[in-house]
């Protein structure tokens, strides 16, 4: 396959960026999208140009590092992570636009690499259960009904890639935040911090400069792990409950 790539190039956080056009040839449909970019980079290095910087690590769809907007879609046309997207999803002769996640809470570091530390700070605000090592009771002391355990798992699958923010027309982090809140708040172990967790995490999310939710649903469509839009509904419910309870105290 022969392809034309239009790639966002930006020297560093402070520099202006622009799309640059490159040609790549001999692309196999079995290659992953990132392997195709590897080919481009080998080409660029040998011709003395700066290779395209992009985040990637596990290349099996679980670490959440890869983060490309491909032809306007976060992670490209298939519902998966960029690293699990294969070139068979494209046609010979295609022109492909590759851009970084765009949100003011995710400033560009270089080319296609963005800074997602705002996500870490949301988790730091309350996305945990306080259980210092050694303090745990016997695991079977508290049974968890299977539907609750499944609900928790479904939300715990979030890989923190940020595709939800990238796809959201408002640059909102509601799906990411709600996934963690729902994971922990449904479990009996998470109950003692249930209210502070949701209030603090939502406050931090706002603090980081993410947008608000208009329930456009783009986040859930882009999510490679299939976190449902209803996750946001459940978080809203938790937030209202916590606000009511906090006002009574």
């Amino acid at each position, binding site marked *: 396959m022969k392809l034309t790539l239009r790639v966002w190039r930006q020297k560093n956080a402070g520099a202006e960026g622009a799309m640059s056009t490159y040609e790549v040839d001999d692309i196999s449909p079995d290659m992953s999208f990132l392997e195709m970019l590897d080919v481009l980079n080998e080409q660029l290095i040998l011709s003395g140009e700066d290779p395209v910087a992009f985040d990637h690590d596990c290349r099996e769809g679980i670490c959440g590092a890869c983060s490309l907007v491909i032809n306007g879609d976060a992670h490209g046309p298939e519902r998966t992570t960029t690293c699990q997207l294969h070139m068979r999803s494209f046609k010979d002769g295609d022109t492909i636009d590759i851009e970084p996640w765009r949100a003011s809470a995710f400033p560009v570091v270089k080319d296609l690499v963005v800074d997602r530390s705002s996500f870490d700070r949301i988790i730091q605000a309350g996305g945990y259960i306080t259980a210092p090592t050694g303090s745990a009771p016997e695991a079977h002391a508290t049974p968890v009904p299977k539907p609750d355990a499944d609900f928790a798992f479904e939300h715990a699958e979030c890989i923190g890639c940020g595709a939800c923010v990238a796809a959201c027309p408002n640059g909102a982090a509601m799906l990411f935040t709600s996934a963690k809140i729902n994971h922990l708040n449904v479990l009996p172990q998470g109950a003692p911090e249930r209210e502070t967790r949701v209030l603090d995490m939502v406050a931090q999310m706002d603090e980081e400069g*993410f947008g608000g939710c208009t329930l456009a649903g783009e986040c859930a469509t882009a999510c490679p792990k299939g976190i449902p839009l209803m996750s946001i509904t459940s978080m809203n419910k938790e937030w209202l409950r916590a606000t009511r309870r906090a006002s009574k105290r």
Partner: protein
Amino acid sequence: MARTVWGSTVGKKTVMAVSGLIMLLYLVVHMIGNLKIFFGAGEFNHYAHWLRTLGEPFMHYEWTLWLVRVVLVIAVVAHAVSAYQLSRRDIRARPSKYVHSKPRASYATRTMRWGGIILGLFIVWHILDLTTGTVHSGFQPGHPYQNVVDTFSTWYGNVIYIVAMLALGLHVRHGFWSAAQTLGVGSRARDRALKTVANVLALLLTAGFIAVPVGVMTGVVS
């Protein structure tokens, strides 16, 4: 609590949801009242007068009406201010567009902001036209039937009204469902029901409101 709510994006969305539902409830009542126009000037004008005497003898003349008006003004202002502030925030959160962009969310979702602005402007015109008569030449206080027929006898009156009601339908369609999610009453099991109610409400309101100008245009109401 008020500070938490107003200071948070989730809280402001709650304000929008609650104020939106108040307005929605009002619109349903308003739309049903409007349909009385098909039963003739007497019945319609009598209904309009009754609105002013509602609650008597406990309430004085027009007290109830003013109470409703105050609640509505608060709802409209809260809704609009929240929407304005949230929109500004959203635009700041996503300052640069994708070079390769494509619209995806449904039409109703994408038109919430513009639809809201159209509706806001419409409300102003609507009050100046049919409540105060400020922009209505030949306005006859106390004769709402005649004033309505008069408004819908002009082409621009019809156009403004019908466009606004279509915008209303779209706004309600996404807004009602969205409010349910914001208030946390949505669930996977309930989602289809909520979407259906939203669609039915949107359709009934639009059809019910548009029936009046159509009635005037076709001569059913004159």
